[in-house]
Structures are given as C-alpha cells and as structure tokens.
C-alpha cells in the first residue's frame, strides 16, 4: 500500500513539474502563437542553472556555488530567461515554422553543449554534487517526497493563478491580438516585436522553473534529460489538453504523462520479449500518433479556449461559434 502511495506521490510530482512547463508553453503558443520547438533548452537551462548555483563546489566542472536553494532556483529561472532573451532577439523576425526550426536547433545545440563541454556542466556524466534542500532535516524517505510534492503543487498553483490573471487582463488581449494578426495589431498602435519578446521570455522563465524543480527532484541532471523527445511530450500535453486554455494544459499533462507511464509499464509487463526491446521506440510512435490524431480530429484539444466576451466573465466556447484556426 505504501508502495503504491509513494509511487503516486512520485508520479504526481513529475506530472506537476511538467504541468508548469506546459503552462509556460501555453503562454507562448496558446496565447501568443509563438511556435517554440526547443522547450527543453529553457527547461534544461533552468535545471542546469539551479544545480550549478545551488550545488557544492566541484573540481571538474563549473560550480557549484552552494547558494541557498530558493536563490539557486530563481537563478535557474533567470538563466532560462536570459537564454530566451538572446534567442528571442535573434529570432525576432521569424514566425511559425521558421521559429520552430530555429528554436529546435537551439535545443539540440544546448544538449550537445551540455554533453561535450565537460568543464561547463559535467558532460555526458551529468551534473553532480547537488543535495536536495532540507535533506538533512527530513531524510530521503516518503515524508520528504510528500513535502516536495506539496512545494511543487504550491508553485504550480501560483504559476496558474499568475497566468490566468495575466491572460484575463488587457495584456492577454494584446497577446491574443498578436497571435491572430500582427499587422492589424501594429496598425492599432501595438508593438508586436516587444510583446512577442516579453511573452517568449516569460514563458521560458516558467519552463526554467519547471526544469529547476525537475533537477532538484532527482538531485541530478544530464544531457539525457534534455533530449528532443521531452519537447514533443510537452507539446503533446498542450495539444491534447487544449492550447489557449490553462486548465486544459494541466489536465493534458496529467493525461499524457499517465499514458506515457502506463504504456511503458504495460509494454514491459505484457508485451513479448522481442517487442519489449523496442519499448522506447514504440512510445515515441505512440506520442506521435496522439499528436497527429488530436490535430486531425480535435485540434482545439479536450478543453478548448474560451472566447472572452466581456468583464462580466461570461465566456462562450469558440467551437460553438464554429471558429477554426
């Protein structure tokens, strides 16, 4: 029983962390229409940043600086934000698929850098020397994991409230206008470049938070954690949940992460041995099928974006009005 419970805590922690990353992507894609194909770069920048800033000093790579945990985590977010600022400035003129290609390239470059620059972040062996905060007081057991889950859930809720408040304000209206038609927004006195950059950085800082928490949870991060598959998983979560809808983003994350975990378990348990060898590949195919299927048959996702109609908070589903992208 305690085994199951502790597994559920583990599952919920990872799902909640990923939810934060998906919320960050939703700000970029769902609200602003920015096609970030390199989510893992910002996730990874937050993760590596947190561990380098908060870890104990290492002889063979940069850091650690042994900073207090919350400062290290904020620093990780800031590093993700700085990366987004640099990438954002360089790709300011790119839209849609071109932006996706450029950011995908950034993410692959990031992974390669982490894998090969041993002096920077430990190379393929990963980043060691980080101790989870309060570990000495709380130990490594179930209590610790439960408290960490509560910490993560608190941050998830805070992120959620922050974003909901943002997108219901005139700022959200501005982001949606940029998503719908930049030229028209510009003709109405808005500055799309500035707004796009702000949304790109804000979303990436949120992904950096998720990455920092992820690295904290495992007290370790390596290039294996920033492979392109994670970007695709995070995209699948948003597409299934419903781009433009924060509730959908969180629901989609738990669903897809559940399906991913269950498919891995199911394949390793019930599939014939020859098939089991390909568990990883089969899961890749599965996630691709889910993305394509969703885009074909329910592009608005399980929870579709609601049309903001007035301050009274009444909202209609876009679908009811038959609006398609």
């Amino acid at each position, binding site marked *: 029983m305690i085994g199951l419970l502790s597994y559920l805590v583990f599952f919920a922690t990872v799902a909640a962390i990923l939810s934060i990353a998906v919320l960050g992507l939703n700000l970029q894609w769902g609200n602003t229409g920015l096609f970030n194909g390199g989510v893992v770069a910002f996730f990874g920048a937050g993760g590596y940043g947190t561990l380098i800033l908060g870890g104990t000093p290492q002889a063979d790579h940069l850091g650690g600086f042994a900073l207090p945990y919350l400062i290290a985590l904020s620093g990780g977010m800031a590093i993700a934000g700085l990366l987004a600022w640099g990438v954002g400035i360089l790709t300011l003129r790119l839209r849609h698929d071109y932006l996706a290609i450029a950011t995908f390239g950034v993410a692959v470059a990031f992974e390669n850098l982490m894998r090969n620059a041993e002096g920077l972040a430990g190379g393929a062996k990963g980043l060691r020397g980080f101790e989870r905060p309060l570990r000495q007081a709380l130990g490594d057991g179930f209590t610790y994991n439960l408290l960490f889950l509560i910490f993560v859930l608190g941050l998830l809720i805070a992120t959620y409230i922050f974003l909901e408040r943002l997108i*219901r*304000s*005139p700022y959200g209206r501005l982001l949606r*206008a940029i998503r*719908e038609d930049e*030229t028209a927004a510009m003709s*109405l006195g808005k500055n799309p470049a500035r707004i796009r950059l702000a949304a790109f950085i804000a979303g990436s800082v949120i992904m950096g938070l998720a990455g920092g928490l992820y690295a904290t949870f495992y007290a370790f991060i390596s290039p294996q954690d920033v492979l392109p598959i994670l970007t695709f998983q995070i995209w699948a979560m948003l597409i299934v949940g419903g781009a433009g809808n924060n509730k959908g983003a969180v629901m989609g994350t738990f669903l897809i992460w559940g399906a991913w975990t269950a498919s891995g378990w199911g394949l390793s348990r019930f599939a014939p041995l020859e098939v089991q060898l390909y568990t990883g590949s089969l899961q890749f195919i599965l996630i691709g099928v889910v993305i394509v299927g969703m885009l074909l048959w329910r592009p608005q996702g399980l929870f579709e974006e609601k*049309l903001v*109609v*007035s301050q009274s908070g009444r909202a209609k589903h876009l679908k009811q009005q038959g609006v398609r992208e």
Partner: protein
Amino acid sequence: MVEPILSVSNITRDFGTFRAVDGVSLDISGGSITGLIGPNGAGKTTLFNVLTGMLPPSSGSISFRGKDVTCMSPDRLFELGLGRTFQIPRPFSRMSVLENVMLAPLAQIGERLSGPFLRSREMRNQEQAIHARAMEVLKFVTLDALADQAAGQISGGQKKLLELARVLMADPQLILLDEPAAGVNPSLTRVLIEKIEELNDAGKTFLIIEHDMDFVMKHCDPVIALAEGKVVFQGTAQEAQVNPILLDAYLGAQADV
C-alpha cells in the same frame, strides 16, 4: 487654404526593379474626405502602406500634422492620430467583436506586465471606461448586437465596420480607408457612408481608396487619381468625370474589362 494634415512629397517605392509608387506628391487638407482612385495596380494600396508606415518609402518624405513622419512605424503613427483599415479586413478572428474593439485604445495600464499585478484597481477602472466606450462605438457602427460573437464569424461587410470601429476607439485625426465599400452589401454601405459623413462633420479627415465611382463622385472632394504609380489628376469630383487623361487611364481601362 487650410494647413494640410498630411503632406506627401515626392514619394517613391520600388519593389526590385518595379516602381509601384513613382514620385507622388500630395496634400490632404484637414476636414476633407479625399478620394484616391485609379485602375488596379496603380499603386494605391502601396501608397497607403507607405503612408501608414507598413512599408518604408524608397525616397521622399511625409509629414503628418506638421511633423516629419517618414519611415515611422505604424504603431507610432497610430499614436500620433493616423488610423487605417485594410482592403481585405483583418479582424482578430478568435477574439470577440468586443475584444477587437477594446484592444485599440492607447496607453492601457493593463498592457504592461505590471498592470494586472501592481496596479489592478487602476486597470479595472480603466477597463470599465474602455468597455463602456467600446459599446458606444459598436453601437455607432451598428454592431452592438454582435459584441459577443467571434470576429471571424461576422460577415465581410460587418468586418469592415468592425475595422472602422477599432480605429475610432483611439480617436484618430486622419483615417485611411482602403476600399470600404468593396464587397459590402448596399444597406451596409449606406450605414458606412452615413458614419463617415457623421465623423467628417465632427472634424475627422478621411482619405479613401474606392472603386465605386458613385461613391467617389457623391462623397469625396477632392479626388486624386493615380495611374502607374503617378498622380495623374487632382481636382473636384465633377472635374474628374470629364478629365480626358483620367478617362483614358482609369475609365478607359475599366471599359476594356
């Protein structure tokens, strides 16, 4: 002669080796409804795009309300009081009609990241004012009943009215309309003309591209004609009707169709 609100001097715009606008100079006097006519491909929309900052001119200069605005970006020009609509309407489709209109006002507190978090009370008060004004403007263009519809779902003519409503929210001094009557059914066109006349009486200046000669003859004065990127005629609508160059360049070209 009233001081011109918009003064264009020797504007040229090239696309590669093609000269779409060729040395255009013109003055738009404040309070007028100026018609801009010319056959397809004459460079009218390109000139509009240059005037509104969407395209930088290859050479020449533009001044608006006494200020040099050559190469200024569209958002800055809008802030200075120059609004425009598009030939093919550009609504924010997956936003409500009301939201489309509420977007337009300048200097919104909630359009800064700090707004919703640090100045939320001020922001809410401003939102209420913007909301009230948006409903007024929507009523003015007869779209108030559609406020909660998605903008992508209203008819083509209504989209043209919506664009006018958006522009009006910021109270611009000069409004450039690109074929406001094209593809709009006659009863909506009447509404549109009525609204333009009302706004003009209230002091707004209009520069209108229009192919509907009835519209131009009845409502525009003066009329400027472009052909092959050049100004070929400037004068009253009556003079335009009998001008031989114009008949040749414009009406002749139409008669061929």
